[in-house]
């Protein structure tokens, strides 16, 4: 029992988790009479009532299209929509709100960059795009398009066994032919936090631009695009307490000017004639069609919520929960975790496998206990191939998770081991 004492839970967590939990209506529900233990925030986060109410409020009180309605409702909706853009800009420390375009997702944002800057931009046949093995499919496939339609050459930085990028290989692969470096700030499988500031710096030295996938980072740690010196950065609202269907594309002003729009239509034009049109200004040229107004407003409120907690505190809380989880995992026989062991180098995403039990069976059995985890290839098949894994189970933590949730997970894993013993 002495060991158990060493693992005693801290008396007080860095965030007031019970107060946070009270803001999330879904956490009051049960699953088959069990308490809901939600450990799949890397897939999508739950939503606080403030965000739910803000979207409902838009539809109930001032629903009108933005940027064109010449009446009070339209002015209110435009003000709130543009206000959300300001909040997002502040959240990632962009120089100006005009560097923020709303999209539907990280995926759309990266596609805009790949299409508008890569495929339709200055890239020439033979120019190189340097990615990494640990990218999500959404930071792989858009670049395949650029290879297939423009003759760009794709190269990849490998991942070391400890889950970190092989930075010396990055240096080798980075040449004057490299025009785009694209990297995730945080791996959705390994939790690895990549040294993006250093990656961007070295990319700039050879004249390449650096594209950053921040889908797993923006919800969980402070982001400063100016300090990172990221040229483009993409993330989604739904993983950071916001609604689904709203994403963010950040780009340095001069690069957004050079980037062609992906969607043609209303909103994104200055003038249209038969057979030709002139684009609207940045960022509106990327927002063809009526945007997800409620989604943007909801995201703005999610940003308010996170800002009020403080992103440093959010990060510190998740480090604490992750540390506790990794220590608990370490004591389980027949269970392997992946990614850096040092919580300073990783986020609250813990992929694991259990000897003799397939990840889908792990997820099914945990589901019986009301525990939601992810299983599969996590849209990162090249990374799974790198580690020779058909699939893993993945638990991911957020602000509403506490050490009790980790305990429930560990107890569930022991239950899985009993079933497959």
């Amino acid at each position, binding site marked *: 029992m002495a060991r158990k004492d060493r693992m005693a839970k801290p008396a007080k967590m860095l965030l007031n988790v019970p107060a946070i939990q009270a803001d999330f209506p879904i956490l009051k529900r049960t699953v*088959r009479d069990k308490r809901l233990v939600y450990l799949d925030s890397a897939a999508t986060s739950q939503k606080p009532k403030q965000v739910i109410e803000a979207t409902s409020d838009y539809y109930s009180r001032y629903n009108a299209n933005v940027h064109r309605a010449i009446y009070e409702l339209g002015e209110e909706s435009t003000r709130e929509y543009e206000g959300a853009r300001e909040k997002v800009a502040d959240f990632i420390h962009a120089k100006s709100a005009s560097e923020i375009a709303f999209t539907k997702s990280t995926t759309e944002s990266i596609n805009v960059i790949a299409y508008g800057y890569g495929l339709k931009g200055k890239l020439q046949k033979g120019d190189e795009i340097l990615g990494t093995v640990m990218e999500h499919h959404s930071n792989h496939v858009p670049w395949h398009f650029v290879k297939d339609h423009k003759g760009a050459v794709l190269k990849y930085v490998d991942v070391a066994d400890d889950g970190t990028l092989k930075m010396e290989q990055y240096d080798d692969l980075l040449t004057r032919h490299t025009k785009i470096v694209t990297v995730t700030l945080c791996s959705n499988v390994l939790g690895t936090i990549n040294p993006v500031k250093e990656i961007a710096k070295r990319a700039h030295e050879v004249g390449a631009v650096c594209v950053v996938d921040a889908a797993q980072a923006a919800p969980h740690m402070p982001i400063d695009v100016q300090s990172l010196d990221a040229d483009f950065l993409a993330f989604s609202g739904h993983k950071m307490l916001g609604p689904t269907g709203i994403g963010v594309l950040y780009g340095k002003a001069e690069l957004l000017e050079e980037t062609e729009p992906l969607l043609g239509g209303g909103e994104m034009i200055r003038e249209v004639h038969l057979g030709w049109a002139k684009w609207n200004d940045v960022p509106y040229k990327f927002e063809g069609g009526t945007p997800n107004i409620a989604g943007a407003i909801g995201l703005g409120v999610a940003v308010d919520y996170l800002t009020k907690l403080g992103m440093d505190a959010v990060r510190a809380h998740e480090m604490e929960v992750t540390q506790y989880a990794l220590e608990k995992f370490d004591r389980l026989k027949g269970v392997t975790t992946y990614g850096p062991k040092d919580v300073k180098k990783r986020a609250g995403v813990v992929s694991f496998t259990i000897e*003799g*039990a*397939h*990840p*889908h*069976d792990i997820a*099914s*059995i945990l*589901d*019986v206990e009301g525990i939601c985890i992810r*299983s*599969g*290839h996590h849209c990162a098949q090249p990374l799974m191939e790198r580690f020779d894994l*058909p*699939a893993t189970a993945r638990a991911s933590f957020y602000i509403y998770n506490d050490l009790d949730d980790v305990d429930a997970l560990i107890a569930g894993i022991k239950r899985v081991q009993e*079933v*497959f013993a």
Partner: protein
Amino acid sequence: MAVSYEMYQEQILDHYKHPRNKGSLPGATKNARDTNPLCGDEVVLHLKVDGSDRIADVRFEGQGCAISQASASMLTTIVKGMSLGDATALDRDAILKKLGIPLSAVRLKCALLSLHVLKVALGPKPDVSK
């Protein structure tokens, strides 16, 4: 035991841990493979059909969850010795009855992967590799 643990009844775990007819089959006359893209489950079936259109021998290979692999193992025990006509006529109910467990819509795909591979093996395009 809670209701949903029924998915992991003894017979399922038995077939998962001790699969029947697992391995390669030299001299196989029909082979097929498919995967469940959602889970990454994989099932490969090898069939040896004799002169009287009977499945003289069968083996499966693959990897995946207990449901997909137990279902493949069970399927081999069903079709071994069966006429091609009867094997072609096998439907999902036959497999689900044999499994005898409650399945969610998602896990149904795991359970029926091996039957799908059998249909491909017996169908007009016997060699499918994705």
